[in-house]
């Protein structure tokens, strides 16, 4: 048989079949079983995720400072944000020790500002800034929402303003308080917010066996939390709570100092003391014999090396 004969003969098939084939578009059968299986899988995943999250909460990222132990002698601590640094003042700026008081090595300061060179003019600007904000003196009102911090950098007062709130009018007002030469910078978090965060962090760290240093770091625009592990691993529960406080992961800077907690005689700690700098920052690199390594935020962070 020839192929064209077959093609012609196919033309003689039952008319009902031919008519049916001319009907509308064939739609595939709706696959209920497939749909049900997909829905079940989706429900399982969606349902399992909260359970998984409850069992394995996200952990806050942190930086390990190997060898960065903490001494326990009075006033010689390495605070994360400088809040406990001597002569730190509201706003995080640091004003030098008074004349005649002993410095960290036991020598007397000959004049104010001798320990850290602070530009008097900038310090005066800072003072006027606080007055302008109505913040001068202990127990003053809370910081305005726009204020993210202020510090003196290379003899210039730098004022950080929260993103979106920086306006020419506000800058003019600040300049009106402080005079010309103020440097403005943008920041994400307000000082008031970081203060609130600090209170929460202190509350959650309170009662743990960890020694901690907590303070607002205005230059980094975050809350610094130093955890002294005393040779132990930082508990995941602490990191999980910090992660909950700081979902974005950039409002809290966590540092884990893994070395043993030590109580050193006074003569041995000379040179270990962290020199506070304007803004209350205690840079990690200033700590002797420290080595940094970063730990990203993870859901299944392994324990720290002992």
């Amino acid at each position, binding site marked *: 048989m*020839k192929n064209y004969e077959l093609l012609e003969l196919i033309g003689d098939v039952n*008319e009902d079949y031919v*008519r049916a084939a001319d009907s509308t578009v064939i739609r595939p059968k709706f696959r209920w079983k497939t749909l049900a299986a997909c829905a079940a899988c989706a429900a399982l995943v969606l349902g399992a995720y909260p359970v998984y999250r409850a069992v394995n909460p996200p952990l806050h990222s942190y930086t390990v400072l190997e060898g960065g132990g903490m001494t326990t002698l009075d006033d010689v601590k390495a605070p994360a944000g400088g809040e406990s640094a001597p002569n730190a003042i509201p706003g995080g700026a640091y004003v030098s020790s008074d004349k005649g008081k002993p410095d960290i090595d036991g020598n007397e300061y000959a004049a104010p500002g001798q320990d850290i060179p602070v530009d008097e003019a900038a310090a005066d600007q800072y003072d006027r800034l606080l007055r302008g904000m109505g913040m001068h003196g202990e127990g003053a009102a809370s910081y305005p929402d726009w204020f993210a911090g202020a510090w003196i950098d290379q003899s210039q007062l730098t004022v950080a303003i929260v993103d979106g709130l920086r306006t020419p009018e506000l800058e003019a007002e600040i300049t009106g308080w402080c005079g010309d030469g103020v440097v403005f910078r943008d920041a994400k978090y307000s000082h008031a917010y970081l203060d609130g965060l600090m209170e929460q962090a202190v509350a959650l760290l309170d009662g743990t066996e960890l020694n901690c240093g907590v303070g607002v770091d205005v230059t980094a625009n975050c809350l610094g939390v130093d955890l002294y592990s005393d040779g132990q691993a930082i508990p995941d529960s602490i990191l999980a709570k910090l992660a909950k406080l700081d979902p974005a992961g950039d409002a809290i800077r966590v540092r884990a100092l893994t070395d043993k907690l030590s109580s050193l005689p006074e003569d041995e700690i000379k040179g270990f003391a962290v020199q506070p700098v304007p803004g209350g920052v205690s840079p990690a690199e200033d700590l002797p014999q420290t080595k940094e390594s970063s730990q990203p935020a993870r859901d299944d962070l392994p324990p720290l090396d002992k």
Partner: protein
Amino acid sequence: MDDNQIIALFLAQDEKAIQAAQRQYGAYCFAIANGILNDPGAAEECVNDAWLKCWQSIPPQRPRSLKDYAGRIVRNLALSVRRADAAQKRGGGQVALALDELSEVVSGGDTPEGALDRQAFRAALDGFLAGLPERDRKLFLRRYWYLDGTQELAKRFRMSRTNVTTTLHRLRVKLRAHLEQEGFEV
């Protein structure tokens, strides 16, 4: 005007029958012819010839469905034109492809005159189609009766072209086996 009324006009040899048929089924017949010939002018001619055939054959024929009857006539006419074109090395298109595909089913040898019982063969084809799932049956007929291209079939049946091709191949193999089982030397 419905199918029975148009058939009645043909039976009465009323010339309005052709106009009515053209109005009712002209587009359908044109689609079949143009699908085979891929030439609107030739397809139009085929449709006109088909109405003439209807006029000549009704009566004595009294089709159950004028649409099916005319559709079959126009298909056969278009295939004849196609074959004539092929003899003159013209054309190609879906008919040539379909013929190539059907070469898998038949041997290609000559069938002695009168050796093929067309009625029995048609019954065998109907039996083959009856045994197919509805979708496969429609796919087969869209390809080898309406001569749709694989792309059009893929769109119509919401299948991939590969799936269309493989399904049609499977059906051709099945058809050959069925015809041999029915005793036909294809």
